[in-house]
């Protein structure tokens, strides 16, 4: 067989290895290596070994994932969230979460298929499923299907990437017997589903890359589109999927650079065809999918629910039964309104009390009437909103209204309040206008004091004019509404905005909050809402009318809003969690996460990888990088250590796996949010693959046999030498033994004594429960 593959001259359809059909070749290889004296049975076994190995992986994966999947019959760790979200889908109630919807919708789909109605809300870890009538076993079984698929996928990726059966099997078995993947793989959690799509993308891309000498063929398009679809799915499960996209993106850049090379004989037109088809499949398709999943998400969640409050009022009012829609109506000039601070929830209050002449720090006040923030709404909390234009007509309008005259709708509509209107606010109880002036506020000396001004004081009337800005309004015709509009009151003369903060005034302020003028009106804390119009009740007729009138948000507007909130809240997940950890500690597995405990029976589930497996994979990564540096260093001096074909396979396939590990791990170092051990799971799978890659390089000879294969072949087998088989057996045996040893805390199915717990505390960081 030709070892010196003339890849330069490769043109579509001229596959030199194709001279032998894959099957024949396979037969030839295996009979060669088995030797003349071997029996036909062994030969047969070797020939079919790939299928046997694959089946073995499936069966073992099934056993490890589904072993007593009904145990424990309680809510475990993040099932709190993802079970709850599934219930919300089934109830069609709107919720908010930082992750994209696909994985959660898939969980819900399982629930829907088995007829679960979403009545249970998974409020606390340890709640009982049985007594609450939740078909949790079916739900777990459904999600575990994705977990079940991981080891077979690993096998397929390795087999397609030019590794022997024994190396592919090694990778798959290491993944099968990893405790963290098993624990995570049998509960109602997102990571399984995400990792499934991640591996599926990688598998599709490998298949696609193998079609490189048959571009634009049916197979080529199939696997290219499949890569795009899977990438779309993985990023729709968790934004971590972006790392997988980066992985494929970098591989594509290298591939395009290869195609671009003039020595490959492609025309520029061909290059652009390659470029555009990849851009379409790997950018456009995932984007469309990502958007579609959100469209489905929003189409399902049409009812008001716990997620309302995260959104703008416009968004909320589109949800069926939104409480906001029922309390939102136009404000008219002359209305008595109560104004409430968005962040601290106090009402703008003015009692006839005055500011003391001298404060404790010897500063002097205006001794004006206090304007403060009160927790409770009283008669002092109402302000009459007055326009600055058409004041005569307004006076007549008010007079007629007070006389109890019926006012037509059209006329009433002339007195609605708009964005950027100039207004005055007259305190209903004392009849003076709200004012701010250049006197330092009692507790915040850099801000301006708020007080009131008698109506007949015209000299300072400019202090009492406010520009009313509605947050997020784009045009001056936006109407001021109760509840749903957030407003800023910016003094027209001084440019300061009404603001308050949670500090309480001293005794003379009755424990109210200080209200003053903030010089930066754009701050979030200057937002207020109008919660009530005195004496105004909504009529059934109005509710109906409003439902008709509701200005719809387009899907894209909703999507942009939701996406922005997701990113914002994801970055804000900084509250310290007792089980969070730093990325640096993950590969060394210095600490796990307590998922669930049962004190009575001394059972627990503790997320922990297979320590030996993880440490061995660290060694493999280290060995690979050291080897890479050595190859490069010799290569720079034009010395070839391993032969060009092996070298290319190491760089291409090994490099791909190593980069996959890197890109799924290192970005976490730059994240500000709280991080957890399970964020390393995607990378850990690639680390296991690295073990197999190193194994193949060191123990499987001749290496070329596997790296040089036609596009259609699968993993091929040699009867391994005794030493190779021994190393394989030892690696797998250690992995299985460690897995079994830690299984009680991975499954949480058996009671452990204190000694048993302590014997599993290999590192001081393993803070298992029931150590005493």
């Amino acid at each position, binding site marked *: 067989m030709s070892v010196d593959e003339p890849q330069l001259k490769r043109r579509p359809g001229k596959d030199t290895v194709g001279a032998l059909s894959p099957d024949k070749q396979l037969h030839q290889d295996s009979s060669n290596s088995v030797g003349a004296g071997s029996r036909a049975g062994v030969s047969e076994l070797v020939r079919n070994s790939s299928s046997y190995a694959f089946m073995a992986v499936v069966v073992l994966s099934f056993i490890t994932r589904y072993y007593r999947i009904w145990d424990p019959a309680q809510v475990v760790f993040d099932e709190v969230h993802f079970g709850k979200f599934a219930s919300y889908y089934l109830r069609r109630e709107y919720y908010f979460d930082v992750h994209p919807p696909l994985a959660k919708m898939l969980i819900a789909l399982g629930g829907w298929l088995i007829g679960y109605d979403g009545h249970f809300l998974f409020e606390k870890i340890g709640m009982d499923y049985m007594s609450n009538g939740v078909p949790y076993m079916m739900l777990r079984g459904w999600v575990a299907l994705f977990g079940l698929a991981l080891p077979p996928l690993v096998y397929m990726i390795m087999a397609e990437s030019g590794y022997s059966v024994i190396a592919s099997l090694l990778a798959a078995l290491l993944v099968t017997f990893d405790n963290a993947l098993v624990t995570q793989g049998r509960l109602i959690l997102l990571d399984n589903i995400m990792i499934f799509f991640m591996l599926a993308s990688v598998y599709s891309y490998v298949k696609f890359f193998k079609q490189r000498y048959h571009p634009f063929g049916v197979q080529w398009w199939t696997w290219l589109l499949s890569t795009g679809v899977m990438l779309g799915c993985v990023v729709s499960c968790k934004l971590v999927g972006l790392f997988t996209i980066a992985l494929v993106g970098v591989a594509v850049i290298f591939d395009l650079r290869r195609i671009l090379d*003039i020595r490959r004989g492609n025309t520029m037109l061909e290059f652009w065809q390659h470029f555009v088809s990849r851009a379409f499949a790997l950018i456009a398709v995932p984007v469309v999918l990502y958007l579609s999943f959100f469209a489905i998400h929003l189409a399902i969640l049409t009812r008001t629910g716990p997620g309302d409050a995260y959104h703008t009022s416009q968004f909320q009012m589109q949800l069926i039964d939104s409480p906001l829609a029922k309390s939102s109506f136009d404000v008219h000039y002359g209305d008595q309104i109560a104004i409430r601070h968005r962040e601290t929830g106090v009402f703008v209050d003015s009692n006839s009390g005055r500011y003391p002449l001298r404060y404790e720090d010897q500063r002097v006040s205006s001794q004006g009437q206090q304007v403060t923030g009160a927790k409770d709404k009283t008669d002092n909390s109402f302000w009459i909103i007055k326009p600055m234009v058409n004041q005569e007509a307004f006076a007549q309008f008010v007079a007629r209204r007070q006389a109890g005259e019926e006012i037509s709708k059209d006329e009433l509509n002339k007195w609605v309040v708009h964005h950027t209107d100039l207004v005055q606010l007259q305190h209903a109880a004392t009849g003076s206008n709200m004012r701010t002036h250049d006197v330092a506020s009692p507790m915040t000396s850099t801000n301006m004091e708020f007080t009131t001004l008698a109506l007949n004081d015209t000299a300072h009337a400019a202090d009492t004019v406010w520009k009313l800005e509605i947050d997020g309004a784009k045009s001056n015709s936006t109407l001021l509404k109760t509840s749903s509009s957030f407003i800023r009151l910016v003094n*027209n003369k001084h*440019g300061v905005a009404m603001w308050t903060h949670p500090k309480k005034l001293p005794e003379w302020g009755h424990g109210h909050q200080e209200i003053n003028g903030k010089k930066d009106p754009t701050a979030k804390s200057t937002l207020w809402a109008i919660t009530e119009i005195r004496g105004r009740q909504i009529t059934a007729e109005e509710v109906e009318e409003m439902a008709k009138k509701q200005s719809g948000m387009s899907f894209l507007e909703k999507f942009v809003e939701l996406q922005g909130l997701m990113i914002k809240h994801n970055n804000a997940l900084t509250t310290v969690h007792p089980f969070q950890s730093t990325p640096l500690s993950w590969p060394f597995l210095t600490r796990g996460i307590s998922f669930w405990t049962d004190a009575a029976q001394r059972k627990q589930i503790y997320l922990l990888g297979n320590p030996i497996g993880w440490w061995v994979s660290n060694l493999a990564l280290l060995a690979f990088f050291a080897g890479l540096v050595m190859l490069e260093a010799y290569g720079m001096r034009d010395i070839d250590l391993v032969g060009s074909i092996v070298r290319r396979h190491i760089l291409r396939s090994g490099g791909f796996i190593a980069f996959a590990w890197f890109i799924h791990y290192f970005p976490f170092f730059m994240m500000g949010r709280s991080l957890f051990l399970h964020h390393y799971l995607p990378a850990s799978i690639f680390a296991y693959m690295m073990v197999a890659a190193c194994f193949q390089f060191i123990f499987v000879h001749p290496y070329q046999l596997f790296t040089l294969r036609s596009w259609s072949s699968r993993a091929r087998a040699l009867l391994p030498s005794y030493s190779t088989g021994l190393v394989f057996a030892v690696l797998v045996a250690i992995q299985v033994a460690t897995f079994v040893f830690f299984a009680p805390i991975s499954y949480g199915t058996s009671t452990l004594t204190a000694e048993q717990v302590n014997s599993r505390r290999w590192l001081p960081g393993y803070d298992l429960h029931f150590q005493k």
Partner: protein
Amino acid sequence: MNSRKDAKRGSVVGKKATSTQEPQSKFVAYPLLQEPVTTSVPYQRNKWNPSIDGSLILLLTMVCAFTRLYRIGRSNRISWDESFFHSRFPNQYLNRSYYHDVHPPLAKLLISLSRFAVDGNNRTIEPKGNYPPDFNYTFTRCFTALFGIGLAPLAYLTCLHLNMKRKTCFLAGLFVIADNALCVMSRFVLLDTPLLFFTAATLCSIAGFQNTRHYAFSPAWWQWLLLTGLSLGLVSSCKWVGLFAVALVGLYTVEELLNMYTDFTPVTTALRHFGARVAALIVLPLAIYMASFAVHFAVLNRSGSGDATMPPAFQARLHGSKLNHQPFTVMYGSVLDLRSMHPGSGLLHSHPHKYPDGSQQQQVTGYSHSDSNNNWMVMRVGNGFNYTSDPLLQVKDGDTVRLMHKRTSAMLHSHRAHKAPVSTGNYEVTAYGKPEWSDTNNEWRIEIHKEDSSVTNGEIHAITTQFRLRHIVTNCLLSAAAVKLPPWGFRQTEISCSRSQDLRSAANLWVVERHINSRVPSVDMRPMVKMSFISNFIRLHLEMARSNNALIPDRDKYNHLESDPWSWPFLVYPMRMLGSWNKGDIKYYEVGNPLIWWVSTLMCLLYPLQLAYYHVRKARGISGVWAPGEELHFWNAGKLLWGGWALHYLPFFAMGRVTYIHHYLPALYFAILLLTFEIDHFCRRSTLGSRSQAAVVTICAIGVLAVFCWFAPLTFGHTGSIGDLKYRQWLPTWNIYRDKYAM
């Protein structure tokens, strides 16, 4: 790609022949298409011409001096950070009292020296308001402006080293002169000006070094190598931003050494190269850097505002420090302030507030300020000892002691029943119980770790003895790891009892900072303490890093001074250099020359695209684009300029601390030279004749000078109504005559 690499190899050492002669042993990906390497001619090296270059440099220097010095003493107001760098820190140096700051000392020392030269050391300048009428602040301003003036000739020289045409070299000098931001920052006493100068000097030297690479170990080669090292040392002693220049030179050196490796440079030659670079680029700068700190420590020999940031042994050596004189040997009944050896953990402290959870006993925290709540009395176990009349008894290694909080008479206590509030793996430490009670949970064993003193006898001595306190009942160690408590603990440090038996961890080590015992005579501590420069140096750096990271922006604060890094290259938020902006005030505005800023930003974005474009052309086999050596030139000059820009700009995105627009100035200097380089590149690659090229250069020069003059009132100070400067607000975000927060 390949042939460029080969060309580079050929030109560096000229040994390309070895690889082509032995095709058998060579690993070649594409053997059939290997192109023969034809040239290794260096690309039109500039030669120093004394009359032309000398006069051009003189001209640039004079023009630059005019712009930097014109009416420099006009405003007698302490402007912007002059309050720190012209008054506060020089005050400290002049009266020699120890202070703490985030910046290394060199630039501040230079400024203090110039203030000393003109004004002596007999007064302090208040850091607010105006300079005293008899104080010659103009002198110091002129002194720092010298660094700003040096920037223009350096730019010219650098471009000359980068083998640009003289026309464009001159243009580089003009660009530097005509940038309003560089100009206005040079006119005040700030650290940025020396920093910029030394950064520019580094670039100039490394460019000169690159230019002499064919003449390794010649005097000129040594000269530029040593100058590079010297300026690296100086720049990093001004501000830590100088480390980006170190990174640039480091990367350059790595590339050079790798090339030598690929070129089969003989090992002995390679080792000589390596050794020379280690000596000049690592040892020399480090020596300069450390020397600047040695001077810093030597000058500041009195107690001052920064004492508390340094370990007690350091403080004990400062004149006038409270730690200078105190009783040396700790006796039972002594009252102690115990300091944790962990930086930032502070003194063992307690106050009459309770823990909100856990045992709800009295809090014990770490507090960094001196306070009577830090006083603990060391007591024996049991009540049979009279601390005022019984004979004095030394506290020894291995003794079991109790510590009583003096103000509340509560005992230092720990217990297994409760976890520490934040470090939940540790036990809670509280102050609990009365001295008369017998409670084994109050008992701690003294374990001496180290005695840094001339007297080592197993007794506890003030300041010099490091020891652990081991809780007898639970066998845990009293520990302070600089973990902050939530608001209920007033954000002081958490004190816990650590179950880890890490005997060397600084968190578990304590030292007696102050020792009060009226029955023991006080002694001068200075002969007793041993202190090494290196340990002071390291400790100071830990503290500097901590306070640097603590400069966290408060997003809710009303502030028009800070700006985010993304906005700098686009000149979105220039900065007012004065708080008061009324008619009659001399108003300085830190706005760059928009033409230079915007076009140079464009070039910084363009350069990588150009590299990619040329790479693709090569991959497509489009040959004949380059004159001999031109491609190498494009890479060699461009990598230094673009790399310098990227290294001085991008790291700011990763910084959590507050950032200001003048943090961009070093990067801007690189961007300006890159802009010049691109103009040079354009002139060479286009078919323009030398006259048209001159026309291009003239138009560029006139353009930037015109814009400079247009913004000159803001650079040289504007006294009239700001409304006069109407058409100078080119972006709506600028706050020249309108505060962006005003309505």
